[in-house]
């Protein structure tokens, strides 16, 4: 069964070129990618993830608000009983924030140099095959 991924852009920045490139690469790797558009609140992202029953959420944030937004998504997922959904981060994330985000439960942080192949490989390796 295809892996289902939600690609979401929390926060107020208005650029989704990068997120779209990743979304297309994941599609080309055979995944079903739900793209929700710009300026999503953590609440909207989590509700969409639940309705779409995704295996993983890829968050992308360029505005610098990732330290507030990413952990909030995790918190809401747990509140809704969906703590098993994998969450990754990308965008412009200073290196010193990476360990903190991982400690909060973000599965992986993809820096600006990450290739699509690396992201695909990470997802394939870490998403549990459904039974």
């Amino acid at each position, binding site marked *: 069964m*295809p892996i289902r991924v939600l690609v979401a852009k929390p926060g107020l920045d208005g650029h989704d070129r990068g997120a779209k490139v990743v979304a297309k690469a994941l*599609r080309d790797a055979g995944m*079903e*990618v739900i*793209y929700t*558009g710009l300026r999503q609140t953590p609440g909207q992202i989590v509700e*969409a993830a*639940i309705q779409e029953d995704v295996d993983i959420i890829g968050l992308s944030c360029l505005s610098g608000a990732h330290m507030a937004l990413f952990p909030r998504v995790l918190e809401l997922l747990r509140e809704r009983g969906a703590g098993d959904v994998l969450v990754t981060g990308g965008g412009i994330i200073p290196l010193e924030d990476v360990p903190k985000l991982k400690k909060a439960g973000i599965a992986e942080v993809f820096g600006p140099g990450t290739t699509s192949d690396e992201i695909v490989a990470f997802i394939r390796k870490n998403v549990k095959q459904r039974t």
Partner: protein
Amino acid sequence: MGLAEKVATGDRRAAARLISMIEDGDESVRTELADLHCRGGRAHIVGVTGSPGAGKSTLIHKLALEWRRRGRTVGIIAVDPSSPFTGGALLGDRIRMQELSTDRGVFIRSMSSRGNPGGVAKATADAVRVLDALGMDKVIVETVGAGQSEVAVMDVVHTVLVVVVPGLGDDIQAIKAGILEIGDLFVINKADRDGVEAAQRELEMMLELSSEKGPWTPPIVKTVARTGDGIPELVGKIDEHWEMIRREGLLEESERQRCRREVLELLKHKAVLSLLSEYGPDEFDALIHDVARRKLHPHDAVERIMGDKKRKN
């Protein structure tokens, strides 16, 4: 508690999970689906079809907002084609529906056709059952009106909206192929553009030619989905169609037709599987090979498969 029961209590995660299992063709949910079918049938199912970019998702967003304002709950199933090469899909209809995403009276699900036209109609019919059981008053199904699979998806709904846009003569021409006949309502969206009157005249003419006089004459409604112009009128017409179906005693007939199609589709699917089940892939390939080498007509290959099956029984 089973998933079906959980769905009936309003458990949205359970609904989402059940739809995934339907999409995966998981046989273990058969009893759950039977349960939903036998208890269900409340929802009004509305199909929205039209060419790519006609504004279907934007329109559905506005329809849902209007129905919410009128106290109705709304389920949405947006079907998009998958890539024939990788099986992957980019499902972007939610982009147009952001305002609805945290409303608990709304449930939106994106589905990919997974390269199988018959399969997606089957999965859509069952996904509709889930949203019906979840208590959605209206269930809207979006598909691109391009081919056979889309027409098949529209078979599962009560009311079909065909969305066209002005300006492109060929757009109206394009709907001739099979979609004109299934439309219960026609929407000229993007009515803020030039050519609305021409589009209306052309549609009227085509409808005139094709219409059988029944209790319902398909209306043409002009909308600007982006701003919401024409939406209350459209909602009124859609609800009118639903009322007409029930008032005229057509609901039972409509249900029977929908069910007949669904049973026939399932039967075709299962019959093929069952016929082929005793045929190993090698045997089947050998037969195809003979057809390809012009030793056998396809008819005779089929007869051979069916004959072998009978002998074994």
